[in-house]
């Protein structure tokens, strides 16, 4: 053992202790944040499994015997099944339609220059800056004239269109950063425009597509405003509007309410768990290249 090592030893240990302390602090902070964020969700999930009487006696307790009956009742009696189906139809169709339009527009705007392409891009991006809810009155009259009021397809159209600016914004940037050589190589290999788009370009922006679709999905799934204004028939309510109807009808039945909330939230949680990886890839694309 040299003298040098014995001097360096404690110093290194001290620095190590400092780093470890920082690590612990960061962990505590993050776990604390997670706890605060997750607690309501856990409370909701736990409460949805308890009978009404128990909930009233002890609002924060654990279920003695899991009571799945709440879900069955919410699904059929309070018509959450119908709301759920409406929400799935509207959200999925709108996301697919909106993304399809965005990806085609973004490809052309990101990879080609043509007269007016810059203007067109600005026009599309302007949609990002103007809150679409401000246009609800014209949209309402337009839909009234077109006979689209109180129709799920009408809702799909508004939603799809509202997603286009964001989709074009993200996807254009992605298409732009794909190396030009790829398209040239594919052309020389014999690919025409459509094959180039479908087999080379589209697979390469998949992370961005996932990001765009997920963002749209969350927004549309949770949207309360448009169905409230544009939909009248309770049979066509989506989940968020359905929930308010439920509050007024079953407001006093808390266990049913919790079950309804779980039904509303579950798809988003599942989607997030499944798509996180793709989304992270999309958000950090280019960071490690």
């Amino acid at each position, binding site marked *: 053992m040299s003298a040098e090592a014995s001097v360096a030893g404690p110093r290194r240990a001290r620095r190590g202790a400092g780093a470890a302390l920082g690590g612990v602090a960061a962990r505590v902070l993050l776990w604390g944040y997670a706890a605060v964020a997750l607690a309501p969700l856990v409370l909701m999930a736990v409460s949805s499994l308890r009978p009404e009487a128990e909930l009233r006696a002890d609002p924060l307790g654990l279920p003695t015997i899991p009571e799945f009956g709440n879900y069955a009742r919410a699904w059929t009696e309070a018509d959450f099944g119908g709301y759920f189906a409406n929400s799935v139809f509207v959200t999925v169709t709108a996301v697919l339609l909106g993304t399809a339009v965005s990806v085609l527009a973004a490809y052309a705007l990101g990879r080609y220059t043509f007269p007016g392409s810059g203007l067109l891009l600005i026009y599309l991006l302007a949609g990002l800056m103007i809150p679409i809810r401000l246009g609800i009155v014209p949209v309402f009259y337009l839909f009234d004239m077109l006979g689209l009021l109180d129709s799920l397809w009408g809702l799909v159209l508004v939603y799809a269109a509202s997603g286009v600016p964001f989709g074009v914004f993200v996807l254009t940037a992605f298409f732009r950063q794909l190396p030009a*050589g*790829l398209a*040239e*190589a594919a*052309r*020389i*290999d014999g690919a025409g425009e459509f094959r180039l788009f479908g087999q080379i370009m589209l697979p390469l922006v998949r992370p961005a597509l996932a990001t765009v679709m997920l963002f749209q999905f969350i927004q549309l799934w949770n949207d309360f405003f448009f169905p409230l204004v544009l939909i009248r028939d309770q049979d066509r309510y989506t989940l968020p509007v359905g929930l308010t109807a439920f509050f007024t009808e079953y407001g006093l039945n808390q266990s049913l309410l919790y079950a309804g909330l779980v039904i509303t939230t579950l798809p988003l949680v599942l989607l997030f768990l499944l798509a996180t990886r793709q989304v992270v890839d999309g958000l950090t694309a280019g960071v490690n290249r």
Partner: protein
Amino acid sequence: MAKIVLENVDKVYSGGVKAVDNLNLEIADGEFMVLVGPSGCGKSTALRMIAGLEEISDGTLSIGDKVVNDLPPKNRDIAMVFQNYALYPHMTVEQNLAFGLKLRKTPKPEIERRVKEAAAMLGLEPYLKRKPAALSGGQRQRVAMGRAIVREPQAFLMDEPLSNLDAKLRVQMRASLNQLHERLGVTTVYVTHDQIEAMTLGDRVAVLRDGRLQQVDTPKNLFDHPVNLFVAGFIGSPAMNFVTAALTENGTGATLKFADHTLPVPAETLEERPALRDYFGREIVLGIRPSDFDDAEMAAHNSGTMEVVADVTEELGTEINVIFTVDAPPLEHEDAAALAADAAGDGDDEDGVGAGLPLARDKSVFTARVNPRSVVRPGQPITLAVDTRQLHYFDKVSGLAIGHPANVAAKA
């Protein structure tokens, strides 16, 4: 396989920039043609026009016997290797190789056979199921080559395919490219800014500058008989030394004088290039290749000598580069300026050492390549033997090589 012919080909970009100016080039069937020149000389543009990635502004381009000016790239039956490889990142190596064949509706067994063959040829078999991201630079480069090979096209077009590799790998790949061309015998057009690559790979080398073809010839002829100052300075490493010298005739023969040096002009040179006689009593630009110097004590050929003081010596083992100054102002010619700019531009070139010599001031910096057993040391005087049969003579104004057949023909 086919020959490729460019006739009076122009490329004018919007804004009037002429990237390629009246290019005439005939690439024979099975020939390995290298386009070389400093960056911005139009070599890549020329290649991309052959590929069909750039429109041809004027002139005709034919592959085989067919004029292909307006044919899209996929119908030209050519394959291209890109500098950044341009592999499809979402496909495995196998899919990358097969993609072009699939699009051409090649039968499946045939695709499999060709992919297997190319993979074997390039040593890619273990990597067929991998994606490009999991490959090293050299492996990616080989996949890019393979993608061209499986197509069995009329011609290969290669755009600086080795420039992204490290030095050692580049030398290796250069050798295997040579081998590959020997084996496949496919007409190849190869673009590079590296004159060593050009010299080692090309059957013939076309030197371009500012969109204009300077000279096209075999590497040896380019080296021995450059048509002008630019080609002379661009080809060869270390670069040719230039100095303005007075050419005079006395009773016994002609001599060259610059600074305090005098070199005789051999009688056979005057015989070969009668045009030199027109320059008697005038100044010309003299070019001496570093390899035409040697330490006088061990020189095999000694037809003229220069007494100099070595400023810097670079011992490379197989030779010693002696860098010294000659007390004459550095050459002022647009060609020399272009070369200096190019040497300063890409730092990985080993030539152009002298240009940066801090103490050169307004002197000409020369490099001599001498025998490694020479005892020359920095700061010490040395007698250099010059092989005067190999001297190069250029017109001071036009920069053209005096008496070069191409220049004589152009004049007539």
